[in-house]
């Protein structure tokens, strides 16, 4: 196997890593908002269900969850392919961490804002969408940035349920060539570059969110 072939194979793996990371981060973000909002704004039942989800997901190791979905779930009759298993496991995991960020962000909005909205007789949905979230999202962005990188790093675990991501390819090439130092150094650099890209993207989004919030603020006077 020539070096060019190695790099090509690893590039394919990196592509899979990127797909898994982007997919699970997006689904995770949806879960984060759903459960985070349920935690703060939901009734007692919803809030409790969200709490159980969040605490359980944050209390169990990701690898145990992935193995459970991969090996144990089929025994109860639900068989998912490895790719879906990986995305589901990662999303459920990062969604719980994100939900805590959303909860913290929503709770950090000054009480006066809620009171003012209430005094103006805004409906609850309106208050949440137009008053609380635009302000809270700005506070959430730095933490979301960290979670996105965390999730990217976590995608390496899907190689253990036979998804051909960067780590999986690295293992294959290492087993063929026995050149562990070279292969794993390239892999580490690959993840590092991807992390830097994610960090840059999240910083860009943070600036956008900050500007958006300022704009909304001035528009509403």
């Amino acid at each position: 196997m020539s070096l060019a072939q190695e790099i090509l194979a690893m590039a394919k793996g990196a592509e899979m890593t990127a797909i898994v990371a982007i997919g699970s981060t997006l689904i995770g973000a949806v879960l984060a908002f759903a459960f985070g909002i349920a935690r703060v704004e939901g009734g007692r039942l919803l809030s409790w269900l969200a709490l159980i989800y969040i605490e359980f997901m944050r209390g169990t190791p990701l690898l145990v969850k992935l193995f459970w979905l991969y090996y144990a779930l089929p025994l109860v009759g639900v068989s998912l392919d490895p790719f879906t298993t990986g995305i589901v496991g990662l999303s459920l995991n990062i969604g719980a961490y994100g939900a805590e960020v959303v909860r913290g962000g929503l709770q950090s909005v000054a009480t006066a804002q809620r009171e003012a909205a209430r005094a103006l007789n805004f409906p609850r949905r309106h208050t949440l969408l137009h008053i609380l979230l635009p302000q809270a999202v700005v506070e959430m962005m730095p933490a979301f940035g960290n979670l996105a990188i965390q999730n990217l790093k976590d995608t390496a675990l899907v190689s253990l349920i036979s998804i051909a991501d960067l780590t999986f390819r690295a293992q294959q090439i290492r087993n063929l060539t026995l050149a562990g130092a070279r292969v794993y150094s390239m892999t580490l650099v690959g993840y590092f570059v991807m992390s830097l890209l994610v960090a840059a993207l999240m910083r860009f989004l943070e600036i956008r969110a900050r500007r958006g919030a300022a704009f909304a603020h001035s528009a509403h006077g």
Partner: protein
Amino acid sequence: MIYGYAWDTSSPLAYAVSILPILAIGLVVTLKAAVSGFVVALVLGLIWYLLRRTRIRAVAWSTALLVEFIRDTPLLVQLFFLYYVLPDYGVVLPALVTGVLALGLQYSAYTAEVYRGGFGAVPRGQWEAAIALNLSRYRIYRDIVIPQAVPRIMPAMGNYAVSMLKETPVLSVVTVLDMLNLANMIGDRTFEYLIPLSLVGVIFPIMTTLCSVGIHLLERILPRDGIALR
């Protein structure tokens, strides 16, 4: 049969009860890995923090880059790196030791940041006063800075200790016989993964909750203003 314990698959409950002793042996390995990994992280992180503060620019910068690199790459790949590459250079370590090193290395990037935050949060005036009083560097650290920094460092360190505990199952990939590995082995032999893996999935939240409670208690005992080192 593993470790002399046979399982009883006659009913789900009997099965669960019969494999608990095996998982308990794995749990001990998990805890050992987490505790020693955290000690490595505490020491390495302190070294990174000190190297980053040196006056020699090249050292400070390269340490900062290294720490960023460690933080931004997956534990699993770092583990593979240590596990497969070290023996090529004549360093042959038991799998558990390699795993502990990988865990410690990954988390040292986080603890370095905690040290920076904790020591940085000690008010400037405290340093200035200590220097004005002509205290030696050793005494400044021992009597002024460290006692005030420790209560600020504790909560973040506690959180990282808990998350490190949750990352130990990754070590099973390099043949460490932790709880997850044993659960998988039981599954391989009985063709019944649901109960062993679910048990592991229940034991972890129990452990992390216990750890969190313990850390909260510890934080309560530590006075907020600082601790005396004498």
